[in-house]
């Protein structure tokens, strides 16, 4: 068994990261999980959070994603995220933008509460909560972004 696997972080616009990794820690929607070489083939949806990639030398790199899904096979992890940033690259501005999107999604969900159902609103609220937690975790202020009109 190879001791590394291929890790790809893909956004709709381009391939963001493509590196070999020894383990990848993912924020799954039902809880965090770690993928290592030889992991059972799985497709898992993600919540907003940090993805940690540990390379062959044991160095960890973190990426913030705003949800998406990951395709895990025995020798690769492909993460499809609408937005992904290396933790070091996240500025308050980028984070504000993410928060604004999440708030907007929640507003839209609340506006459609009648047709879409309570579950939908709860999901959007959870998403916003996860996003806030992500900001606090990397040391950014979740309250700076203003709710769009």
């Amino acid at each position, binding site marked *: 068994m190879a001791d590394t696997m291929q890790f*790809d972080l*893909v*956004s*709709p*616009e*381009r*391939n963001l990261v493509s590196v070999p990794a020894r383990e990848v820690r993912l924020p*799954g*929607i*039902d809880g965090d*999980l770690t993928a290592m070489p030889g992991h*059972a*083939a*799985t*497709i*898992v*949806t993600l919540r907003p959070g940090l993805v940690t990639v540990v390379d062959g030398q044991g160095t960890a790199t973190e990426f913030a994603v705003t949800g998406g*899904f990951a*395709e895990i096979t025995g020798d690769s992890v*492909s993460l*499809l995220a*609408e937005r992904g940033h290396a933790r070091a690259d996240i500025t308050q501005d980028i984070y504000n933008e993410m928060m604004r999107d999440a708030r907007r999604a929640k507003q839209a969900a609340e506006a*459609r509460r009648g*047709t*879409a159902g309570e579950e939908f609103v709860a999901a959007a609220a959870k998403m916003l909560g996860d996003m806030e937690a992500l900001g606090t975790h990397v040391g950014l202020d979740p309250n700076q972004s203003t709710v769009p009109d």
Partner: protein
Amino acid sequence: MPSLKDLKNRIGSVKNTRKITKAMQMVAAAKLRRAQEAAEAARPYAERMSAVMAGLTSAAAGSEGAPRLLAGTGSDQRHLLVVLTSERGLAGGFNSSIVKLARQQAETLAGEGKTVAIMTVGKKAREQLKREHGQRFVHHVDLSEVKRVGYDTARGIADEILDRFEGGDFDVATLFYSRFETVISQVPTARQIIPAVIEAGKDAGGASALYDYEPGEEAILAELLPRSVATQVFAALLENAASEQGARMTAMDNATRNAGDMIDRLTTVYNRSRQAAITKELIEIISGAEAL
């Protein structure tokens, strides 16, 4: 017979036109390269997405309670045509061929007694469809402020489509855009996005059985279908951007060549007239001298 001065002015003006079309051609060539790179870069995401979708949908399509985005509303009475064009003209037949395809489709559907609604993206579709199908317009997306098509643009359009679908405004949505084949060939294409069309041929059946899904397959599918609509809109926008520049490049190349031909022709006429004038003057002088 135009005067020499007129001819000279004419030649000058055609030369200016040639300069402009030449410049536009070169700008289009540079933009085309960028558009192609963007389309290239977006491919991995779209491919993975459709591979996963293929695995999921083949399993879910037959089952009871499949999401409406996949199974449809059970009717195909109301259609939404999403016509993607550019904001600018001077790109050969690029916009008109997309609009023509959409118009044919609209007329066929209307002829079958179905309800047709049209959503236009880009100014050109709106202008060209307004006269005949203006009453069918339901929404317009303005791209004039968009410098570079990004995923956000696509998601905006997709959200608009999905909102209308959730609101029960239509049963079937089709995208009209131009598929980029080569610089000289762009094919106007209609692509149904709702309900989702399952792409056959990718060893979907075998692959899907191997995966574990967390949460369940249905939950993932419900999450993925709206994303897939956005991805398809994004892919169409990128193809369109590349096609537009390709079409413009070819059109401007032709225009530059035509201008060159015209300059040659006019120059010949100009030289002939000039010589005729000189000859005429000489004859006048000689016959004047002889008369003395």
